């Protein structure tokens, strides 16, 4: 009996992390606010934007809301245009399988999105805010079952072309050799 209680307690403790909706990645004070909006072009010197705080990988990985946002953005930013909705692959490589050309760690995927990769993956540097990149990273990992089942998204309200991310079995990541462009 007590085992279940303990297990329940643990589940509840993780739930805090899973359910938090973080709408602002910066504390309000640190962000360039209306003070940076001047009516005049004159200013004493360049005002440095606040350095972006690197969101920890766990933050998005364990957060169901972030992953679902990533899922939304995957379609909105037309990632699905090349990788297909759900990551089945098309013009771009499939994302729901075990093969990873550039590594399966969040940092690798982050770099892929921000820097772009040869043979067609464009760079989204400066186009996608950091928070959203991490949300996308988390979602991309969920497509091959790398996230916890209770965080990965369920089915979509769309035609059912594939099992939902939450029912995807975990694919053990393995590197894929890729021809380097000459």
């Amino acid at each position, binding site marked *: 009996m007590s085992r279940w209680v303990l297990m329940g307690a643990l589940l509840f403790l993780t739930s805090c992390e899973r359910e938090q909706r973080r709408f602002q990645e910066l504390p309000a004070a640190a962000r360039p606010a209306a003070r940076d909006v001047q009516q005049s072009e004159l200013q004493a010197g360049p005002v440095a934007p606040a350095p972006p705080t690197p969101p920890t990988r766990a933050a998005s990985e364990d957060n169901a809301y972030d992953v679902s946002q990533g899922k939304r953005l995957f379609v909105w930013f037309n990632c699905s245009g090349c990788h297909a909705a759900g990551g089945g692959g098309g013009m771009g490589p499939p994302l729901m399988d075990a093969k990873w050309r550039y590594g399966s760690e969040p940092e690798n995927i982050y770099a892929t999105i921000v820097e772009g990769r040869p043979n067609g993956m464009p760079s989204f540097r400066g186009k996608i805010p950091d928070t959203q990149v991490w949300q996308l990273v988390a979602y991309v990992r969920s497509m091959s079952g790398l996230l916890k089942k209770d965080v990965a998204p*369920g089915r979509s*309200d769309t035609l059912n072309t594939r099992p939902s991310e939450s029912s995807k079995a975990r694919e053990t990541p393995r590197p894929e050799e890729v021809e380097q462009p000459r």
Partner: protein
Amino acid sequence: MSAPLPTPPEPPPVRDDEAWERLYLERTWAPKKGLIGWLSEVHHTEIGKRYIITAFVFFLLGGIEALLMRWQLSGPEKQVMGPDLYNQVFTMHGSTMMFLFAVPMMEGVGLYLVPLMIGTRNAAFPRLNAFGYWTYLIGGLLLYGGFLLNVGPDAGWFSYVPLAGPQYSPGKRVDIWAQMITFTELAGLAGAVNLIVTVFKHRAPGMSLNRMPLFVWAMLVKSFMVVFAMPAVMVASTSLAMDRLIGTHFFNAAEGGDALLWQHLFWFFGHPEVYIIFIPALGMLSSILAVFTRRQVFGYLPVVLSMVSIGFIGFGLWVHHMFATGLPQLGQSFFTAASLMVALPSGVQIFCWLATLWGGRLWLKLPLYWVLAFFAVFVTGGLTGVMLGTYSVDQQVHDTHFVVAHFHYVLIGGAVFPLFGGLYYWFPKITGRMLGERLGKWNFWTFFLGFNLTFFPLHFLGMMGMPRRVYTYGVERGWQPLNLLATVGAVIMAVSITLLLVNIFWSLKRGEVAGNDPWGADTLEWGTTSPPPSYNFLHLPTVRGRYARWTAAEDQPVVTGVRSDRKEVLVTRLLDAAPDHRAELPGPTLWPLWVALATGVMFIMVIFTPWGIVVGGVLLFITLTGWFWPRPPYKEELAPEQPS
């Protein structure tokens, strides 16, 4: 072969020897001691009390949530909480008040009072009773545990899909809601079946159906409604949970599912739910009216028929919650007519009660205060209900604060006012002490004032266009003054509830001792001590008229021959309540708790993994086997094999 008995020597002494009888009954029905004893309690008064107290705690929690919402809405763009928390809070408020307060409270009052009112020693299925309570408690704890850990549901108490579906409500918030529904509905169904069978089979000899107190009728109708309404929400919430957890497509329009299917299933339950809450209150009202007008309720038959027909019609008008979804013309007209039709039996009841008031001599005590206030408040809500049931008008005020005003008038006016009246009326029976009169009047007047101040302005806010379920509004909308007024009213209501709490705690210690029957009342529960003993009645009573104690003969016979060395009760016939046979009821046991916990493991674990079904199923089988496995003392054993 009979069981070994405690001290009194065999054979059982003469039946009419009261002292011996009492001794036997006390030994037989005594609850077990200690924590284990507390956990294995199955007597209906104890279970009923637990329901009432737990539901009251949830009422207070729901009230605190309401205060938080009113605080947030007291001015435009207030920052008491953000939208994320606000959405959780209003969902919690609605779910709490509907599923954790109103229904269980009515159920608890019914479970406490009905066996007493019909003159038996316990409910028909004592262990089922305990099981119901534990599942209810687990459901409530699950919901509030989730809320405290930021997993509070945030899709509204109605959880409309697709918003509550897997795509737009990530995380486990809505799953917790869906499982809470399962728990509370299981409890509701267990209580309903229990009440129905208790009323059908355990009435005192002579209490034929047409002599049943109106309160018992109300509980009977309510229980039947539960039986036919709650499966709908269980089917719905199970479908929702499956959509979210294992990817079914019940509500996915792209794959042949339908978002409106959810609304149909939910409101097929949701509308009867209102009557499930409201009809027991009508029963309380009738009880109070008879006693405090010192006469029978005018029109027993019309009142009973009205309750029964509300019970039927209540199932035919769920679509008026969906008038804005773009229904075909025929549906609009049909459901408008059905919605208006329910006003007729409600009206007939109101007229009968008014006639009772006119025909009686009013004894102005606190229970009657609440009943009189009911007339003004509930009728207001009923009339706005007629507006909302009218298709063309509903299309305007639907989902505005006008609706919020309407259903608070109906539910607080129709259920909470009578409930508080009932609290003042039955508190002496349950605790043995009267509630304080002075504080009670303060409680009443502040509540009445605060209530109207809170909810009357919301009618106007709705007409000014303020939607429901908004966490804030712009200053340019001009909704501030009325909102502020409503918030002030909410604070007054909070003060009133505080007074009530003070009164309760004060009276528990210092209240005037009530005696068996402080009101000169008619129903059987006033014929035993306050609070009732664990066996309810020393002698099971018999009945010869509708108002059992008022119409009893000087030498009204009592039942003898029911064994007092076993938990034996009398089973009577359904229609005329003639004695049929004697049945033995089970005593205190921990198995209902284990079964409830197994159910809890199953339904909570499936939120996280489908293995919950397997684990929970095995646990359920084990615990249910334990529940049903025969234990001593055994009765007469059959011969191993009888020659045929």
